[in-house]
């Protein structure tokens, strides 16, 4: 029932409110949504399963390029030659977009599987550098692939992303991760995070769950990438470097790894903040990195510290 309410609200906002708004604000909202999806998907791997994955941008890139290639080469030509009514065109476009996005996500998920199975037997620092390396390898492979533009970049991607789409995907991501965490599988993930050997001793198939988290995280990263591709309409591997992976890690860590609310808040704040700091544009990255260091030294558990937002907070009564 709640899902229905959410969908109705979403469609309402998307159809009526958004067209009234300043396109600049809408753009920020879209980027917030994309970043939330990225942050929450990484949080699943990093904060909840406790796996140091710092190559998330690689999955995002795969999803972005796959969906863009499909849209550009297959769907766009197919539906633009359709001389039907505009309603039918709209349906066709959205269906094509859904197909592209899903393919992007699936491709990223497959990569997550391929990367995860061999590397997830490593732990700690070694896993971090392995994922870093994998992210870069993916990027370099894309960089050398001609039909997606290689070093020139991929242009002419149809602009199919809208606020409605972004928040739909974001909502699905958050809902799915939240439900996963609350389930038995989620508890297994947390057990793996807390002490992998103990979890294995309890009969949990640690490899299965680690790979599961990894694949789901990669899937949503791919979807986010696809959303971004169809908004900016241009892709270049320079947007998917290690720096982007670190930005996403910052969202998760600053918000509190293990806390979905934390990731959402951090992603939102850190997407909006650069807009306000435009005057100090050249200092932006300096402030960012200094902030990161200071955060790690003073409050490493992040903003939420692993807790979630609870309605209960508003109902607390003072005890006598």
């Amino acid at each position, binding site marked *: 029932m709640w899902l229905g309410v959410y969908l109705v609200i979403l469609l309402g906002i998307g159809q009526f409110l958004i067209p009234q708004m300043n396109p600049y604000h809408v753009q920020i909202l879209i980027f917030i949504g994309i970043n939330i999806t990225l942050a929450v998907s990484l949080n699943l791997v990093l904060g909840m399963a406790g796996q140091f994955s710092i190559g998330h941008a690689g999955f995002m890139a795969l999803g972005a390029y796959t969906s863009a290639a499909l849209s550009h080469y297959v769907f766009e030509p197919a539906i633009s030659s359709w001389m039907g009514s505009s309603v039918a065109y709209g349906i066709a476009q959205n269906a094509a977009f859904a197909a592209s996005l899903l393919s992007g996500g699936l491709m990223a998920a497959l990569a997550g599987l391929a990367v995860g199975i061999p590397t997830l037997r490593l732990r700690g*620092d070694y896993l971090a550098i392995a994922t870093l390396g994998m992210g870069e390898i993916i990027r370099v492979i894309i960089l050398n692939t001609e039909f997606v533009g290689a070093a020139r970049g991929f242009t002419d991607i149809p602009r199919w992303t809208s606020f409605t789409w972004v928040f739909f995907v974001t909502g699905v991501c958050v809902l799915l991760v939240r439900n996963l965490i609350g389930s038995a599988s989620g508890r297994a993930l947390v057990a793996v995070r807390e002490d992998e050997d103990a979890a294995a001793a309890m009969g949990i198939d640690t490899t299965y769950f680690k790979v599961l988290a990894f694949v789901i995280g990669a899937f949503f990263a791919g979807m986010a990438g696809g959303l971004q591709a169809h908004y900016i309409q241009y892709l270049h591997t320079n947007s998917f470097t290690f720096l982007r992976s670190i930005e996403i890690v910052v969202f998760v860590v600053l918000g509190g790894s293990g806390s979905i609310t934390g990731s959402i808040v951090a992603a939102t704040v850190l997407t909006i903040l650069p807009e306000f700091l435009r005057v100090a544009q*050249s200092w932006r990255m300096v402030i960012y990195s200094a902030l990161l260091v200071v955060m790690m030294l003073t409050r490493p558990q992040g903003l939420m510290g692993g807790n979630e937002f609870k309605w209960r907070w508003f109902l607390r009564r003072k005890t006598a």
Partner: protein
Amino acid sequence: MEQFVQQVINGVSLGAIYALIALGYTMVYGILRLINFAHGDVYMVGAFAGYYCFHWFYGGANYGLAGLLAALAFAMAVCGLLGYVIERFAYSRLRKAARLNALITAIGISLLLENLGQLIFGADPKDFPAFVERTTITVGIVTISNIQLIVLITTVVLTLGLQYIVHRTKMGTAMRAVSFSHDAAGLMGINIGRVISFTFVLGSMLAAAAGILVGLYNPKIEPLMGIMPGLKAFVAAVLGGIGNIPGAILGGLIMGVAETFTVGYLSSTYRDAITFVILVAVLLFRPTGLLGTPQRTKF
């Protein structure tokens, strides 16, 4: 055939530079189990220190080899200080913290140095001064430039110096003890903080030397120049066995040769990719590196 030998020489020169940076990574990891991501940026600062030394102190005049040595000393002093400051203000508080936090802090400091560098030095590439005139020496079928000779000789001298410090001095013994076990070393009366700071300073000085040498080799320097070599040197350290000093040198040389061969025989677009392929191969098949002791448990 002669191209092959030439490539080997080029590879070894490049590898020597990677080895110097890798030594810093491996020493810090051995002592703190921390991957000091900021190390590549210390190398960058070293290069710029050499640049500013030339322009501020020498006034643009060329003093030849003596000038180079003085600049080298200056850069090493600057970076040693930088390494000490970084350790003291950032890493020392994180010794008891979770590994991820220390990793992220290191990344944060790396970004901080890069962006401060862009602000202070300017993001445009600068021309590193040529302290000595480039000449080449042809021995039989191969040609070696005097810059490459300087690189190799400096690396050998520094490495021998490091070996002496680590194996023949009290501080070196303390370093090895601390890298084995903090608590036991502390119980033996070793001042852990002092040893860690010393290690950082030493590693940073080596990175500074690498920065100067690279400036001689490729005269274009810019604030982001530390990222790729830092990563490659890190892979070199892992390849040789992280925490293992001879391993870092071996790893550096292999990385340099591998990269040169990839560029020469395959394609220059894969120059950076080979680094990551090696990294992944090492991590999958021999995570403790070539010279590391094979451990079945990956802590």
